[in-house]
């Protein structure tokens, strides 16, 4: 699973996020429990987990808003605890809920961010033009932020995070509250920025992980329970390489299921009488689609659709996160 990650060239340590043994307890409750990972340039890390799993707390520790109970975090080689200002200069951070100053206009707000980030007037003009175009903020630039729609407010928050073109981006639910078109655009934005940058996003939208992330960490009850590329996660699904047949209403589902069970490489068959669908699960992820196709032709089953499943991320997610709870 390591071969698809960005190579660990010498010097990359200075451009990355490192979290080592991060622990955070609130009162007696452990919100984050020994979280360790590294993210290198070019990687887009998706942080997944049920609500309350510790995603936001972990991101807040990386961004220096919450001090860890134990462990340490580094941004581009700067300890967020010991050199917070240097670390934060390298960082663009979108907090959960995209808070801004509501009474300000996006233009004034971004100018404030630019000043604090130390941009010169010329740099600011150039960067402002860039982020306004990327996030399509032109039409609302002079309206108070609190009067804007949720989608615009989220995009103002994103603009703030990328204004100084930081090498490291931490975005807590960047697409929350956006409509499908805006979600698509923000994902495009993340993809175009990804080369050369370290990006961490948290989300509970699984398709997003598939769409933009090169790597996914699933966290539940404060612990990392999976850390791999999305394709590998999908392969964990019991639906991986399964074949589902949707049949006409005239078909004899039981007979079809029996025939499928007799195929050597089929481990299990499930019948959905409601949807008129029969799903065959292979042994050891074997490819059974051609065998089933041939069988269907031979027996003249009234097949409406034959579908090879890649795997279902939501199913993997549920399996992983609930297994941990039951344990």
């Amino acid at each position, binding site marked *: 699973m390591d071969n698809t990650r960005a190579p660990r060239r010498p010097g990359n340590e200075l451009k990355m996020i490192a979290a080592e043994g991060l622990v955070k307890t609130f009162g007696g409750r452990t919100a984050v429990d020994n979280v360790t990972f590294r993210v290198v340039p070019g990687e887009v890390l998706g942080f997944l987990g049920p609500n309350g799993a510790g995603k936001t707390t972990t991101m*807040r520790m990386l*961004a*220096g*808003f*919450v001090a860890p109970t134990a462990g340490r975090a580094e941004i581009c080689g700067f300890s967020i605890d010991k050199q*917070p*200002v*240097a670390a*934060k*200069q390298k*960082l663009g*951070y979108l*907090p*959960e*809920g995209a*808070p*801004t*100053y*509501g*009474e*300000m206009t996006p233009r*004034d707000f971004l100018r*404030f*961010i630019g*000043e*604090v*980030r*130390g941009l010169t007037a010329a740099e600011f003009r150039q960067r402002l033009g860039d982020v306004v175009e990327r996030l399509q903020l032109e039409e609302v630039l002079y309206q*108070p932020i609190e009067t804007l729609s949720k989608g615009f407010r989220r995009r103002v928050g994103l603009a*703030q995070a990328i204004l100084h073109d930081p090498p490291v981006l931490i975005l807590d639910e960047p697409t929350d509250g956006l409509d499908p078109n805006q979600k698509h655009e923000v994902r495009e934005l993340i993809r175009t920025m990804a080369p050369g940058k370290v990006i961490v996003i948290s989300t509970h939208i699984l398709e997003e992980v598939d769409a933009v992330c090169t790597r996914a960490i699933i966290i539940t009850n404060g612990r990392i329970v999976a850390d791999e590329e999305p394709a590998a996660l999908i392969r964990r699904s019991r639906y991986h390489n399964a074949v589902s047949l949707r049949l006409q209403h005239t078909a004899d589902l039981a007979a079809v299921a029996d025939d499928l069970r007799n195929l050597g490489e089929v481990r299990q068959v499930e019948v959905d009488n409601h949807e008129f669908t029969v799903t065959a699960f292979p042994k050891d992820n074997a490819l059974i689609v051609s065998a089933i196709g041939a069988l269907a032709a031979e027996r003249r089953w009234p097949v409406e659709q034959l579908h090879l499943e890649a795997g279902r991320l939501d199913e993997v997610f549920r399996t992983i996160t609930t297994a941990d709870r039951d344990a």
Partner: protein
Amino acid sequence: MGIIGSIGKRELQSYFATPLAYVFIVIFLALSGLFTFYLGGFYERGQADLSPFFNFHPWLYLFLVPAIAMRLWAEERKSGSVELLMTLPVTLWQAVLGKFLAAWLCIAIALALTFPIWVTVNYLGEPDNGVIVAAYIGSLLMAGGFLAIGSCISAANRNQVVAFILTVVICFLFMLAGFPLVLDFFSGWLPGPLLDAVASLSFLTHYAAISKGVLDLRDVLYFLLVIGVWLFATTIVLDLKKAD
């Protein structure tokens, strides 16, 4: 200065983007005028000085400064923008000082706009303008003291109304620390030297000296120290509570 200036400027912009600054300034001017002429008997006294004007400043500040201070941090914490501010490359001190200076400047503007009364007294008689300048400085320093207390209380509370009430109470205690109202509470059980220490914390005593034209370095230092200590407390409280 750069970052403190940027934070202060942004804060001040917010005051003037909302009615806050205008309401504060108008109320301050109206009340200070009322108090001076009706309660203070500015004309009836027949003296060319501004003591009826300055004497009421502590009482004005007691309610008006907590009103402006209560939102300093409570609002940032409530809206979540404190997370944004604290993850920008700024130190706690820069943030605390920038916001404090903005609020202080807002009070200074209100105070400066009372200049007609100074013009009036100069038109009517020949006051000692040195005393008036000293009193203005003393008044501003005292407002800073109230404001620093409010800043700390505001950082500790998410709820602005709670912050307001607590600030008024604590400011009241500090104001009257040298008077029986407060001292009697301590006199039964506190040893003499400590009692004197409590008494010496009184805003009113230090302010009274300055507003009579005695710009003693110790009184100035006292107010600067009060501001410094409460702002330091603000940074500690923020560090502990910002993410709650």
